């Protein structure tokens, strides 16, 4: 485990709430066995086959994967929002232009009718102009309302997308934390199992059934 991995692992363990347990997350089995309380050199040698050193590579890869996936998802959600806002902006622009064009055409027609004469006397020109203005105002209000609704929808979709991305990130990180916890539980459980088996601390010599005075050769010849 290099320095960078070590730092990343420490950060990951801290996030998982296992910062205090970081001493167990080591690739050195001998050190792990010592930390578990088996300090005798012989025990270290004997018990090393019952433990696995911790390899952070896959955990860190998984964390990176979660980060990358979250980045992709938030980016997609952001892009979708931008697209939606752009579309609304475009729709508003087009609608406004259309209204301006319609107003211009209405004014042109009124102008033509006035030029033919007699139009102003009846006051129809003014009425038509007012009606057209009301119509344009209504259309503009509709366009703005649609734009507001569209923006709201896009924002809701954005918030929902972000929430989904957060959820997925949380689920991913949760799985990594659970895997770390599982490894720790299994390792500590193994330590418990060995302690329950009343491990010896003595250096055995052939013929010594354990502890105390060994049976001497003389005794055997009796």
């Amino acid at each position, binding site marked *: 485990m290099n320095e960078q991995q070590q730092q990343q692992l420490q950060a990951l363990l801290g996030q998982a709430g296992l910062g205090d347990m970081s001493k167990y997350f080591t690739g050195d089995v001998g050190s792990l066995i010592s930390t578990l309380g088996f300090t005798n050199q012989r025990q270290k040698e004997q018990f090393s086959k019952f433990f696995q050193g911790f390899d952070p590579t896959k955990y860190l890869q998984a964390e990176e994967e*979660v980060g990358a996936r979250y980045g992709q998802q938030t980016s997609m959600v952001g892009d979708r929002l931008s697209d939606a806002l752009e579309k609304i902006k475009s729709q508003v622009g087009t609608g406004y232009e259309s209204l301006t064009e319609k107003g211009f055409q209405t004014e042109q027609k009124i102008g033509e009718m006035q030029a033919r004469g007699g139009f102003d006397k009846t006051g129809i020109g003014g009425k038509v102009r007012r009606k057209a203005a009301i119509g344009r105002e209504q259309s503009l209000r509709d366009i703005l309302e649609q734009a507001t609704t569209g923006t709201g929808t896009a924002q809701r979709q954005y918030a929902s997308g972000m929430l989904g991305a957060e959820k997925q990130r949380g689920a991913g990180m949760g799985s990594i934390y659970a*895997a770390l916890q599982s490894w720790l539980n299994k390792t500590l459980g193994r330590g418990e199992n060995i302690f329950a088996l009343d491990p010896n601390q003595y250096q055995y010599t052939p013929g010594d059934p354990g502890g*105390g005075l060994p049976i001497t050769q003389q005794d055997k010849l009796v």
Partner: protein
Amino acid sequence: MLEELLAQIQAQTSSGMSETGLELTKTAEGEQSALRKYFNLIRETGSEAETEDIGRKRRRSKFRLGGSLLGAIALTALTGGASAPHLAARLAAGAGGGSLLGSKYAQSTQPGGWRLKGVAGLAPTGMFFGAGREKAGGEARDLQRYLTEANKSFDEAQYANALTDAMSAYKLATLPKFGNLFKGKIPGEIIDDVPTDYSTEFLDLG
């Protein structure tokens, strides 16, 4: 893929732990079984030693009895018979010597050797069951001590027995009616060897 990585982590941890767990169970079971067998061996050796001890003592008793009788008769005959002086002392010496020789012979010809054998084979060693091993060690040492003491006392007892037999023979020979036992069975007149006052006593009793 994240799911793939998580599955790999899980697989790696589970399979590794299962494998080492199996190794641990196998080792612990093996050690426990060996220790149990060792306890049984200690018990069996103790029981066998007790039986052998009784057997060798019984066998020695026979040779001892035969030896002391033959010794007493032979020495008495070789040293002038029942009529010669100091019959009691000669009988005692013959019985004691014969007893010792009989015991020695019984000891030297004991099938499989006269010494009680200790626990055969080495005690199982291992990494677990420290208290159990200490207990096994204690029991094995107790047995060894018992066997050593039993062998020592068996070996030493033949001298004490010879002395006891000699004293018994002497006491028997000095009994007032002892002369009658050998009358007509051993060359020479035993009655002549009996002191006068005893003869008088015999006459009184007769």
